[in-house]
């Protein structure tokens, strides 16, 4: 196993999980050759801007309610702080008071710092940040610049531990180290596992729910709470707006479960390995099959299978007929999906539940295995159970590639997730698109009904898509659309 909390940093996904960012083939072929490990690693000789592990790591940690972030970098890397207003809105939606400040500072590295280093200033910034805001923990993030010039973040923990009475956790997330931004999840969770989580003093009646926004849309949080009540447990939603104290006690929970496989592999397995909290290995709770698998696997660990089975049956009676009614209208409709490595396969499964024809799935990266050595559950399910074979590709947000595919495939609908802006490129081509912005979009039977309706309405009224596609020009040359999408793949 790749989890070793004695190490200062966690290896990147390319090295730890055999993850890849370039592939083109079919899903069955991909399965037959045993996932990423069976394919030749490719790189690209043309690429577009992706995202970095630093942004991913800080984006996660920034959402902790009472921690501070110190970014050891030039000003641009700290721009995530500008989203503090959105954080406030989310915190309010979750019923908490917005924080008085963003608690986000930056050492603002300049040209001379790249020559002489800036560790002393960084220490001052950390002390000043503590004095100003009295956070319950301070996460100190490295950047490309601090990494290239070799700043030693580990040493500051030792130097400051007598001055600052709260945990100071270095986060190793230099952007150039990995092409997979999801490595940033692991960097963030490594810091939490190593510096924040304490050994359990007792067991509580809680379940760690590792998710993103915490079920703020459509009040889906209430649906999670309802299910958990049947199991007689209480969820701790992490990380968004969780307190440092809550994080310290994650070890006391009865289980960890997640809405996203790519998000949770390191943390879920880490909490299990280091603190003995069982990690639920299941499909993610999207669509009927995923929800039932998620709920029942958790129920099994909690010894509540009977109660949950009954609860699911009651709910299903209400919602399944309504889902079927809309699914009938979508039967045979052709779809393309582009999302993260876990969501893409989870949503492919849902569209198949609706009887839709999947033409192509693109994942923003693909993990060969998770931290416990298992194949990602959603992918495994597709390989073993899907009646369809379809084109499958991996690209880390390479817009020119999936636009090329999209134009060729010309599906009835394009279903995508973050980054939010992705949806417009399909609509500009005249292809209706739906953005699965919230992770609870298709949560449970109720969410699945909401989702199937949304897809149907998206396909039904194409007016906006029709109009915009007639009035805008895509930024690509016609030549490009005539080339295969994998034109710029090169051997590593």
């Amino acid at each position: 196993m790749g989890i070793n909390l004695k190490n200062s940093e966690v290896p990147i996904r390319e090295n730890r999980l055999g993850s890849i960012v370039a592939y083109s083939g079919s899903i069955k072929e991909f399965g037959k050759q045993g996932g990423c490990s069976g394919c030749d690693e490719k790189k690209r000789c043309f690429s577009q801007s992706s995202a970095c592990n630093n942004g991913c790591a800080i984006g996660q940690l920034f959402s902790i309610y009472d921690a501070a972030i110190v970014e050891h970098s030039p000003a641009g890397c700290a721009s995530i702080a500008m989203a503090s207003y959105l954080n406030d809105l989310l915190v309010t939606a979750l019923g908490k008071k917005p924080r008085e400040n963003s608690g986000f500072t930056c050492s603002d590295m300049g040209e001379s710092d790249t020559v002489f280093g800036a560790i002393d200033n960084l220490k001052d910034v950390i002390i000043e940040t503590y004095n100003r805001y009295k956070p319950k923990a301070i996460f100190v993030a490295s950047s490309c610049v601090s990494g290239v010039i070799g700043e030693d973040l580990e040493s500051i923990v030792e130097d400051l531990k007598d001055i600052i009475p709260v945990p100071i956790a270095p986060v190793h997330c230099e952007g150039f180290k990995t092409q997979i931004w999801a490595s940033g999840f692991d960097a963030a969770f490594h810091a939490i596992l190593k510096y924040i989580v304490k050994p359990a003093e007792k067991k509580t009646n809680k379940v760690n729910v590792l998710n993103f926004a915490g079920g703020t849309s459509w009040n889906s949080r209430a649906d999670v709470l309802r299910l958990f009540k049947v199991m007689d447990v209480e969820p701790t939603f992490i990380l968004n707006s969780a307190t440092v104290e809550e994080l310290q006690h994650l070890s006391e929970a009865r289980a960890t479960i997640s809405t996203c496989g790519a998000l949770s592999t390191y943390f879920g397995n880490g909490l299990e390995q280091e603190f003995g909290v069982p990690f639920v290995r299941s499909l993610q709770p999207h669509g009927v099959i995923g929800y039932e698998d998620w709920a029942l696997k958790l129920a099994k660990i909690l010894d509540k299978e009977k109660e949950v089975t009954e609860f699911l049956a009651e709910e299903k009676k209400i919602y399944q007929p309504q889902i079927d009614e809309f699914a009938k209208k979508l039967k045979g409709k052709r779809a393309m999906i582009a999302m993260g490595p876990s969501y893409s396969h989870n949503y492919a499964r849902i569209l198949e539940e609706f009887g839709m024809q999947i033409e192509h799935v693109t994942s923003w990266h693909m993990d060969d295995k998770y931290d416990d050595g298992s194949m990602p559950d959603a992918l495994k399910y597709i390989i073993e159970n899907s009646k369809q074979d379809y084109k499958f590709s991996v690209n880390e947000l390479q817009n020119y590639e999936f636009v090329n595919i999209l134009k060729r495939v010309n599906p009835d609908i394009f279903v995508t997730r973050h980054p939010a802006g992705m949806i417009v490129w399909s609509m500009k081509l005249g292809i209706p698109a739906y953005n699965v912005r919230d992770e609870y979009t298709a949560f449970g039977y109720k969410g699945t009904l909401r989702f199937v309706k949304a897809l149907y309405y998206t396909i039904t009224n194409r007016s906006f898509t029709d109009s915009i596609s007639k009035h805008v020009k895509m930024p690509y040359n016609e030549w490009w659309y005539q080339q295969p999408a994998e034109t710029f793949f090169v051997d590593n």
Partner: protein
Amino acid sequence: MTKILDEPRYVCALGALQTVEAIYKAIPVVHAGPGCTAKVSIGGRSGYLGTQTVPCTNVGETEVVFGGEEKLHDVIENSLKVMDGDIFIVLSGCTTEIVGDDIDNVVGTFKDSEKPVLSVPTAGFKGTNIEGHEWVVDAIIDQYLSKRYFGEKIKGLVNIWGPVPSYDPHWVGNFRELENLIRELGLTPNCIFGEYRGIDNINLVPRAKYNLLVAPWVGLGNVKNLKEKFGTPYLHYPTLPIGAHETSLFLRTVGKEFNVDSNLVEELITRKEKEYYYYIERSCSFFFENRASSKMFSTVASADYALSLSRFFVNDMGLVPSKQYITEGVPEEHYDRIRQYFKEFNYEIEAEVVFSNDGYQIHQQIENDDYAGTPLILGSIYEKKLASKLNGTFLCVSTPYAERVVIHSSYVGYHGGLKLLEDLYTSVFQKFN
């Protein structure tokens, strides 16, 4: 002294890629890490391009260790094939400059390509996105416009410079309104940013009779450069004209400087002011009778908005300035001149200027000052909670900008002043009255 950026209000020089994106069909080619483009795209919108369509080398460990020149070459070469662009501008980031890639050399190999390929060093540690904006414009002047002859000067043609694309939340509308004002004077505006303004507009730049810079400091280097290269005189008008007082002064100044018939200018001003005051008359009781209205204000903003809004609220609305905080990391050489601008209000009113990028200290000072009642805070979204804590009135005007969606509105001109009043007094209206 500790160098601390608390609540960042600008990004690094690479943020100049938003300036490139603002030129229609100009393609930035970023030679930096995989996350840099997303991090510095603080305007957060897409248009012809979006964050994920920007060509980028996504520099990794290999390029840091062995250099990234080869990768840059490949990405430029293939950008020219894939991307439908009229001009390609290579922007370098921190890592590639620290490891010493010879970017000029790589870009030089494309000097004979059909589309111009330029390069600008925009390493994050070298400056801010506002400075980067000026460097991009200089690169267009030095590496493209100076290399060939674009034709003789065109009578009445005026290049407009000033708002920094995407950093100024209203930049598109502001440019459009500046163009409209120039057009109303019988001149022909030329701008290289916004609404389909692209390479044809760039090609017109050397042919203009005048350059007009409407900003307190950024762009000054550009208009001086244009004067040197093409002999074009420039007018530096530091204030974005908002509302009647400033817009009329703007029209008179521009008219005089660019030889417009003063009768025409005065007739225009009379007509516009009459219209403006029709609307002011209909609304003004609310401005002054409202319990939540303010007498004193502070701006916490980039220099352009701090100055323009201060002049509007003092010279048009009769308010009194408290301290004005300028937050975009203005280079020190401009401090004195900017301070002087804040000493030229009506009735010899002056305002104290504080240059700071430390949100914590700014907020402490505001909390300690007395505003003779409800403070009016015109700032970034960071000031929203502060204003609420002080029972003040808040309008978001500067980066980081949130709360309002700007599609095509502007605060510039007579209409812009009215729009500003609508936005501000909507906030006042929604409070206890």
